[in-house]
């Protein structure tokens, strides 16, 4: 099992502690609230992934051969879900991300992440993560 799948399984285990779906989302709201917000100067079009009414900003930085992601959103649940994705894919080499089977994200069971909807930009966020990894040689 690769590092990314291990991280997904760890998050899945966290969520399995909740009895009902709503409690899970209350937890995601808390994650969204606790996420360090991006500086306003970083919320620029270059980093913007537009949804229907939710916007997500995603910044990719490379340090010591590894990719790190920072994110923010104008809506709290999308912010929480985006924070989870950043936690899964940060501090990895581009190759690790490129080689990852993204269908494994389905394990988390978030329809907001896996559905190709134009609603919230999360699917596009994943595409951006992949593109960031593809643009790097490491």
């Amino acid at each position, binding site marked *: 099992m690769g590092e990314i799948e291990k991280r997904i399984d760890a998050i899945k285990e966290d969520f399995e502690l909740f009895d009902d779906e709503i409690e899970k*989302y209350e937890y995601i709201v808390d994650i969204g*609230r606790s996420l360090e917000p991006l500086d306003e100067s970083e919320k620029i079009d270059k980093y913007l992934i537009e949804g229907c009414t939710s916007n997500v900003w995603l910044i990719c930085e490379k340090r010591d051969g590894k990719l790190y992601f920072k994110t923010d959103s104008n809506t*709290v649940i999308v912010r929480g879900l985006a924070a989870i994705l950043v936690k899964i894919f940060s501090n990895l080499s581009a190759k690790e991300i490129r080689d990852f089977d993204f269908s494994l994200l389905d394990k988390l069971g978030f329809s907001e992440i896996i559905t190709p909807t134009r609603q919230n930009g999360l699917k596009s966020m994943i595409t951006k993560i992949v593109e960031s990894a593809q643009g790097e040689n490491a």
Partner: protein
Amino acid sequence: MYKKYFEYFKNNKNIYLDSASTSQKPYEVIESVNEYYKKYCSNTHRSNFGNANRATTEFEDTRKTVKEFINARDTKEIIFTKSVSESLNFIASSFVKDRFDTVIISSLEHHSNIVPWHMQGRSLHNGLEVVDCDEQQTFDIEHFERLLQENKNAFVSITHVSNAFGKIHPIKNIIQLAHKYGAFVMIDGAQSLAHFPVDVQDLDVDFYAISAHKTYGPTGVGVIYIKKERLDDVKPYQVGGATIKDVTYDRSILLDSPFKYEAGTQNIAGVIGFASALKFINKMKYENLMTYETNIYEYLYEKLNEINGIILYTDSINCIGSLSFNIQGLSADDIGILLDKMDISIRCGHHCAQPIMKKLGINGTARVGVSMYNNEEDIDKFIKSLNRAIVILED
């Protein structure tokens, strides 16, 4: 009381409040679609064997049903398309383009009645004019008249009911006024027929676009009513199979309407299913549905209005079907996600009506779309869930 007519509710526990996106389908609609595929699946207007003749007959009977349903004068006036979007694009391309200097639309249009005009190179005050509305989204008829006076060669294209806000436009007045100034009128009726009757002769409308799937019928079927007097001036949008009387390598002679406008194999099952949907409405009777739905809508409005921080964009007068709202300080998307987890299905977003959302200074709304199969219990569950979502999302 109407839920029992819809199989969807036997198979789903969710409260379906997204009928402005698409309606659920009564048993008989699903049955008629199935019956076509199971028992007499054949192409129409081509072959002459028994099942093909039956398919053609059922298809053309639907045309008659639609004609009677909207009180058109002739089946030639009833043309099947795949959607209201296609109907509007068809008339934009085949009748309006190069004929009219100006197209006048309302502030509440769906993108389907905005983008086709942009594709013709029109923009605001450059071949496209938009009628103002007030803070309750009410159509400004005086502004409309001024636009008609200022734009002598205009075409009017207006939605009957706003998909985002449920506001009913006074289209009879709009059509009368437009005709007074010599302008032809197309009405986007996507959100109408599910809720109230439409009489095209009484309205004296030139073009009226209908959606089957929002009217308890199958997806992939629309109708454009074209007043007989306009038919000669409407060019076919696409040509090909089933539109032709005679072809040589030098020229093509097209059939008469409606066939010249229906190129290629149509959505036969869908069209046949649409007849069943219209018959279902007749069986339920509009007068009953209108009373019932108005009561539900007003109940919903009243309950929403009691919520702290609620932002409503219309009053409940002259509205039907859709009701849009926001909660102060919260995102509509977040509300929609949490409601979904509580088995409440609504739509959140700009509802393909970005210009009016921008005018209102918002990204979008949460929209409740009620229909005949919703009841007060649905609304109570929705309100209870909404209150829970607000508690979760508020700091």
